[in-house]
């Protein structure tokens, strides 16, 4: 693999260059990519990952200068959403960067030491400290003051480019939990690899592990996805038969089609869509049916069901606020985002919501009170259940014969449709389907490199 290291403006060999916004940094990298040819991968560490995600969005939108991007490698990456860094740590980092040389040298070394899981070999620690001291203080401050806060969540959207996300288990702000909650939602084909025992400076701490992960990913860039819910052959035959109305047949086939893994949410943002997927994985454990994406599409189209609980805001806003509240509840109780919680803990939070007992103070990110969370979870359960039973695989599982009651008739007021001739107990007609039990589904386990 040929590797081309590129410095961001204000850092390393580019320390004299200006333009510190994420877009400006992306412009510089884009220039370097345009100067070369052939397919390429793009890797970014920390703030560089946010730049890489921005470039991937431009590439997928058809920027000719960025053609050829084959995959992303995001190491200890800063996500498209504002970076989750505590305010006290941020102000400390701002306080010494343009202090006197002695303070700078001391703090820079401490900064390096605070960002590793164990300890670096001394020569690595020295060169890393030198890199910090070499950086333009204005660039350093610009990142902490604005770049890290830039909210590119909706703009980056969901990328189709295969991506490897690598996180250090000891990284305080950008470890595996943060990557799962804030970076993976942007990657339709993303894989998270956690490197144990290392912090934020993962490439310096375990360069071999990182190289191995990148090579593995290059060899096998995407994981298999769950197939859409299967329709048993007998039910498929019924759908194809004359007993089923043509309009219904088209609708059933459309509903049975696989969901786009790179579905770009329109009502929710990608992070919220990921939380909704996690909720629906508990509410509606059906492999291969992206109920969250389908609900988002409905919310975006403004196709409501004709009413809403007066206590709740408009449907799309209710979903957004409720999902953020649920995530805040998870962070308050478990110090972890909702999407990474074990199923039983997710269930416990949802059960609290159902009982009207999920209360999160606004200061901790709660946006709906316990009563409203109860109303919202009722709506969400109903949305999921209705969506499920519009799917032909679900109807097959029920052994539902109603789809076969119709058929087509050329007459405006139909004549001669089959319907049912028998409606009594225990008298199924010979063509009526039996219930069908699909194979149980197990979610894919998260990968871990050691």
């Amino acid at each position, binding site marked *: 693999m040929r590797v081309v290291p590129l410095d961001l403006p204000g850092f390393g060999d580019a320390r004299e260059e200006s333009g510190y916004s994420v877009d400006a940094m992306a412009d510089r990298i884009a220039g370097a990519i345009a100067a070369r040819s052939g397919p390429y991968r793009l890797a970014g560490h920390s703030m560089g990952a946010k730049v890489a995600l921005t470039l991937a969005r431009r590439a997928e939108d058809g920027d000719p200068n960025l053609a050829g991007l084959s995959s992303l490698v995001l190491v200890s990456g800063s996500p498209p959403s504002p970076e989750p860094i505590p305010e006290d740590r941020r102000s400390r980092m701002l306080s010494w960067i343009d202090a006197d040389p002695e303070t700078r040298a001391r703090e820079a070394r401490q900064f390096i030491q605070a960002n590793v899981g164990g300890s670096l070999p001394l020569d690595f620690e020295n060169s890393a400290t030198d890199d910090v001291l070499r950086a333009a203080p204005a660039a350093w401050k610009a990142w902490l003051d604005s770049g890290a806060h830039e909210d590119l969540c909706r703009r980056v959207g969901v990328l189709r480019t295969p991506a490897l996300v690598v996180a250090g288990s000891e990284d305080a702000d950008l470890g595996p939990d943060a990557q799962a909650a804030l970076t993976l939602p942007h990657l339709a084909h993303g894989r998270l690899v956690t490197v144990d025992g290392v912090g934020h400076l993962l490439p310096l701490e375990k360069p071999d592990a990182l190289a191995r992960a990148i090579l593995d990913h290059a060899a096998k860039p995407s994981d298999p996805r769950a197939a859409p819910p299967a329709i048993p052959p007998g039910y498929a035959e019924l759908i194809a038969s004359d007993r089923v109305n043509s*309009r*219904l047949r088209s609708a059933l086939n459309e509903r049975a089609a696989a969901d786009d893994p790179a579905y770009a949410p329109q009502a929710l943002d990608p992070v919220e869509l990921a939380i909704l997927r996690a909720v629906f994985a508990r509410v509606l454990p059906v492999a291969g049916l992206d109920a969250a994406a389908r609900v988002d599409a409905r919310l975006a189209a403004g196709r409501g069901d004709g009413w809403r609980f*007066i206590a709740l805001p408009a449907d799309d806003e209710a979903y957004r606020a409720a999902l953020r509240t649920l995530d805040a509840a998870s962070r308050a109780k478990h110090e972890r985002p909702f999407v990474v919680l074990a199923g039983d803990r997710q269930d416990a939070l949802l059960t609290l919501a159902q009982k009207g007992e999920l209360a999160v103070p606004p200061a901790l990110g709660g946006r709906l009170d316990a009563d409203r969370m109860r109303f919202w979870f009722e709506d969400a359960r109903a949305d999921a259940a209705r969506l499920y039973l519009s799917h032909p695989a679900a109807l097959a599982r029920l052994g539902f014969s*109603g789809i076969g009651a119709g058929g087509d008739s050329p007459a405006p007021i139909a004549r001669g449709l089959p319907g049912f001739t028998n409606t009594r107990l225990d008298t199924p007609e010979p063509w009526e389907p039996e219930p069908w039990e699909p194979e149980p589904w197990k979610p894919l386990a998260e990968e871990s490199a050691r």
Partner: protein
Amino acid sequence: MNLDAMRTHSEDETVDAVVIGTGAGGAPVLAILAAAGLKVVALEAGPNFTPEKFAFDETLADEIYWTEERLSGGSTPEAFGGNNSGTGVGGSMLHWGAFVPRADARDLRLHTETGEGVDWPISHGELRPFYERVEAFLGVSGPRSYPWDAERRYPLPPVLRNGPAELMAGACEARGIRWADAPAAVVSRDFESEGGPMRQGCINCGFCHQGCRTGAKASMDVTYLPLAVSHGAEIRPESFAHGFERDRDGRIAAVVYMKDGRERRQRCRAVFLCAGAVETPRLLLHTGLANGSGQVGRNYMGHVATQVWGTFDHEVRMNRGYPSSLITEDFIRPEDADFAGGYLIQSLGVVPVTFANAVARGRGLWGQPLLDYLGRYNHLAGIGINGETLPCDANVLALSDETDARGMRKARIDFGYSTNENRLNVHATKVMRDLWEAAGAKDVWVLDRVAHTLGTCRMGRDGGTAVVDPHGRSFEIDNLWISDGSTFPSSLAANPALTIMALALRTAERFLAVGR
């Protein structure tokens, strides 16, 4: 419905009447006035569907539900949309359940009988001939003899009894409760009503609530509306009425409406407001008309419509057949009641999406238990009530501060049970649980539910306490008439559509007699 050969009127022409809404309240009015030779135009907010669109599917049927958002509050917030509100030529009758019990005579004088609720300003005797005319015209199917009304005769034999009906019949036998095949506005054999198309006998597909493909169900688009059009009435689909122009005397001179993105007006001599118990008061509150009594929007009522569900060893397949094919009226006045009024019980078969919605909301199931329970669909059956709701000050429809896409304020409906409804509900739940136990049900559970939209423009004898007189005429604007569920002073135990149609005939004929 086919409107190709329909007579049309120019907007400048002053027609005899504009009818706003083409459901159970508007369609019969339109037919009676047109048949009398009047020039009439109906404005329907929704599109003109043809039955070819009806495709035996719940999700595809979303288009026939009124899905403009309403805000639901109160202690028992009611669901709207597919639960009770329709759009399109034919109104919510496109998706109604066609379950057509008549009101019990006692329900119209509840206050005299119990001191609770209110009396209706008309007697059951006055209503009866109109009931008979509607039943004969629609082609109502029902039992040869009706256990609770010896004189009643239905024009057609009953539709097939289905699985839940068989279970309920057996349970009623075991408990000594009288039962009957349900009166259903679904033709059990081929039938052609005056001015309408030939309708084939019901094929028992079970999709009454999704639009009837065969015309067996008496939706307005295969009954009163074709009759109206055959007599020269005009129906304008996708025409949303939002205002009125008045002459110097305060009478309505024109209806203002939106069609094809443009505001239009139809000049007229009279208006029949038939938009249902949410949109009718909403339009009056929006325009500030006919509300000197302060009663517009007040006494909103939904029926107590609790259901009890159970799992049976039998293969029920409740999607087959007319969904509510059995009835008992033995609880219209229960002997041991600690409440005023009563309820009827019907057997229930429900199609999957509707059922899943109820399970997710009402039973609160999710996760694997939800999937497992829904998986037993072919062995489930329910029974449910339609129970009296008394008028109540706290139950009010008002305009919210939120506006719709047109800039019109959305309706906000606060509804909650009071003591009477709660007691009735407890009684009915006990009776239904007992019946389902007798039927052999396992895993029995109760779904609390509110149905229908009634009240908000009550009829009465006094313009100080009612919006319209006993014939549906506004006390304040003498060429404004209301014909829909909004005029109900109390809910009655019976499902409302048959009574709305009967009252519509009566209102229209009163207008012909004295209103012009």
